[in-house]
C-alpha cells in the first residue's frame, strides 16, 4: 500500500501530499459568472490536519468539492491546479478520477443521509468500495467492512452491517460514513462540517475518532467548519476563507495565540467563552458590522475592506495578495507587517 504509517511527520515542503495552486471556481449565473473561489493556493503534508474556517458563502465547501473535482455542473474549475502526490487531477480521465476517489481521497459530509445510499445496507456500501478499489472477493470485502465498522467504535458491527442507513442514529450514521471513507485507507480525508449536525458528546467522539485514525494511518485531513472552537480542537494549521479567498494560513498554535488578519481577529472574538457566567458574546466585543459580500457584488480592493476597522484608501483600491509574514504563516492584509 502507498501509505506511510508514520503520523505527524511532514515530508519536506518540496513533496507535499496535496498542492493547490491558484485555484478558481466559477458558477455561471444570469448576471454573469459567479466566482465562488478565487486564487486559492496552499499545501498540505501527510499526517497533518488543515482546518478551513469561514462563514457560509465563504467558499470553504466549494474548495472541498474542487479537491475531488466534484464541482456540480454548470460550475467548473476556471483555472489553477490540484495536485495529489504530484498527480494533477485535471490531467486524469473520468475513470482514473473515479478510481482515485474513495481510494486515495475520501470525503465526509455534514449529513451522511445525503451521501449514503438508502437502499443498500451499510455493510454492502462499504464492501462495494473495497471490491472496487481493493479487488477483494465478496467474502473478503464483507469481513473487512465489518472490521471497518468495528474500528470506528460501532458496537455489534456484524449486526449493524446489515442495517440500512435510516435504521441508525445520527452519530452512528456519521461513524458509518467515516468507516466507509476510511475503508480504503485514503491519503487525504476531506471532512466538510462532519459534526455540525451532532450533539456535543457525539461530536467529541467523532473528532477523537478522526484524530485516532489519522494517528494510525498517517493520512492528511482537510477539516472544514464554521466553528472556530471545533477547528481549534483538531487542526495543526488553520486557513481562513472570506468571500472566496484564503485570507490567512497559519500554524494553529500561532494562529490562536495571535490571529493576524482583521477578519480572523473578529471571528475569534465572536466565539463565546463558556464558564462561570463570564461568557463573552459577539454582541459585546467582536461583532463584525455588515455582511460578507456576495461574489456578485465584491467591493473594489480588499474584499473585507467595507467591514474592516483598519481599512484605508489603499485597501479600497488594491486587493492584497496572500503573502508570507513569518515562517509557515501567510496573511492577505496591507495592515499586517510583512
Amino acid at each position, binding site marked *: 500500500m502507498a501509505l506511510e504509517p508514520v503520523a505527524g511527520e511532514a515530508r519536506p515542503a518540496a513533496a507535499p501530499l496535496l498542492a493547490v495552486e491558484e485555484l478558481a471556481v466559477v458558477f455561471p449565473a444570469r448576471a454573469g459568472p459567479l466566482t465562488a473561489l478565487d486564487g486559492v493556493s496552499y499545501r498540505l503534508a501527510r499526517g497533518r490536519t488543515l482546518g478551513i474556517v469561514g462563514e457560509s458563502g465563504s467558499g470553504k465547501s466549494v474548495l472541498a468539492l474542487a479537491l475531488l473535482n466534484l464541482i456540480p455542473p454548470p460550475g467548473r474549475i476556471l483555472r489553477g491546479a490540484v495536485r495529489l502526490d504530484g498527480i494533477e487531477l485535471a490531467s486524469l480521465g473520468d475513470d482514473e478520477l473515479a478510481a482515485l476517489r474513495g481510494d486515495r481521497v475520501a470525503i465526509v459530509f455534514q449529513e451522511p443521509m445525503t451521501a449514503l445510499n438508502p437502499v443498500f445496507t451499510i455493510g454492502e456500501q462499504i464492501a462495494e468500495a473495497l471490491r472496487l478499489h481493493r479487488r477483494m472477493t465478496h467474502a473478503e470485502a464483507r469481513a473487512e467492512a465489518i472490521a471497518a465498522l468495528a474500528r470506528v467504535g460501532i458496537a455489534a458491527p456484524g449486526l449493524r452491517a446489515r442495517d440500512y442507513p435510516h435504521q441508525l442514529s445520527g452519530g452512528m450514521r456519521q461513524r458509518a460514513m467515516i468507516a466507509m471513507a476510511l475503508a480504503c485507507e485514503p491519503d487525504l480525508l476531506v471532512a466538510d462540517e462532519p459534526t455540525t449536525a451532532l450533539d456535543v458528546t457525539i461530536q467529541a467522539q467523532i473528532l*477523537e475518532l478522526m484524530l485516532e485514525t489519522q494517528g494510525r494511518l498517517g493520512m492528511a485531513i482537510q477539516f472544514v467548519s464554521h*466553528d472556530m472552537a471545533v477547528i481549534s480542537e483538531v487542526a495543526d494549521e488553520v486557513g481562513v476563507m472570506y468571500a472566496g479567498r484564503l485570507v490567512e494560513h497559519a500554524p494553529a498554535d500561532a494562529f490562536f495565540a495571535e490571529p493576524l488578519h482583521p477578519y480572523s481577529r473578529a471571528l475569534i472574538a465572536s466565539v463565546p467563552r463558556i464558564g*462561570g*457566567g463570564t461568557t463573552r458574546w*459577539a454582541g459585546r466585543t467582536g461583532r463584525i458590522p455588515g455582511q460578507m459580500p456576495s461574489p456578485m457584488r465584491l467591493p473594489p480592493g480588499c474584499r473585507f475592506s467595507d467591514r474592516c476597522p483598519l481599512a484605508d484608501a489603499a485597501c479600497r483600491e488594491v486587493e492584497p495578495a496572500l503573502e508570507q509574514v513569518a515562517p509557515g504563516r501567510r496573511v492577505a492584509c496591507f495592515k499586517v507587517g510583512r
Partner: protein
Amino acid sequence: MSEPLFAVAGLSKHFPARGGGRITALVDASFAIAAGETLALVGESGCGKTTLARTASLLYRPDRGSVRLAGIELTALSRRALKPHRRAIQLVFQDPFGSLNPRLRVGSIVAEPLVIHGVGRARERRARAAHQLASLGLEAGDLERYPHEFSGGQRQRIAIARALVLEPKLLVADEPLSALDVSVQAQLLELLGDLRARLGLAMLFISHDLAAVDRIADRIAVMYLGRIVELAPRAELFARPSHPYTQALLAAVPRLGAGKRKPGTAPKGEVADPLAPPSGCPFHPRCPKAQAVCREREPPLEAKPGAAPTRRVACHFPD
C-alpha cells in the same frame, strides 16, 4: 418559606410509541422558579427538555405530578378553569418561521392573545400590540406588514411581543435562539436579559447551547433521558459539575485556547433508547464511575451532602 412563583413536582409524561410500547419522555421532574429568576434546562437531543417545558406549561397534560403557579394547583383545574391562568404562562418557540401565521399582519398576530382572553376593545388591543412591538425595537409601520417581510431575528421579536402582550409572570422559551445567526442570537439574548430585569419576568429557558445558558441563567437544570440529573446555580454548575453526565457534557464542548483535543476524553456510548431505558441510573451504561448499585437503583435528585440545599444531584457517587 414562602411559596415560589412557579413550582413543578414529580412531573411525569409518557407517549405511546409507534408499533406499541411507550416512550418515557419525562420522569419525576421537580423544580421551582422565583419571580425574576431564570432557570435553564440543558441537555442533548431527545433528553426531554421540550417535553418538560410543554408539560410544565400544561400544553401537555402530565401523567403524574403537580404544577403550581402562585400557590394554585393547575393540574387539578378543568380546561375552562385553567384558561385564565394560562395568561400568566406564555411560550416562545424555536422556529420563528413556523410559529407565526403567515396570513396575519404582525399587528393582528401580537393582538391575538388579547382577543383570545377577551382583553379590551379593538382600539385598546391595537395600542397594546403597538406598544409591545415598540418596546422590542420594532416600528409602528411594522404592524401592517406580514411575517415573511421580516428576518429571523425580527420574527423572534414578534413572537416575544405576542408572548408578552398578556403581561405573563413566566416566559417559557424553547430553544428561542437556535434558528438564528450567531450575531442575532447575541442581540436576542441581551433583549431577554433586559426584559427580565425590567418586568421582573420569571423565565424557563431551554437550550442545548451552554454559552447562551451561561449568559442568561441564574440556575441550570441538566436533563438526561427524561430526568433532571443535576440542578445548581449557574456559576457552581460550570465551576464544579457534580453529576458525571454534567461533567461529560461540559468536557465535550469545544473551546478555544485548549489546544488539540486529548484522545480518550470524549464520553463513551450513546444515549439509551427511551423505549428501553436501562435499569437503575439512566446514565450508568456510559458512566465511568458506575458500580453495582447504579445498575440496580435509580438515584433520586436530592441535595448534595455537605453542599448548599440549592445544589441537587441524582447520583450515587456525586463529586
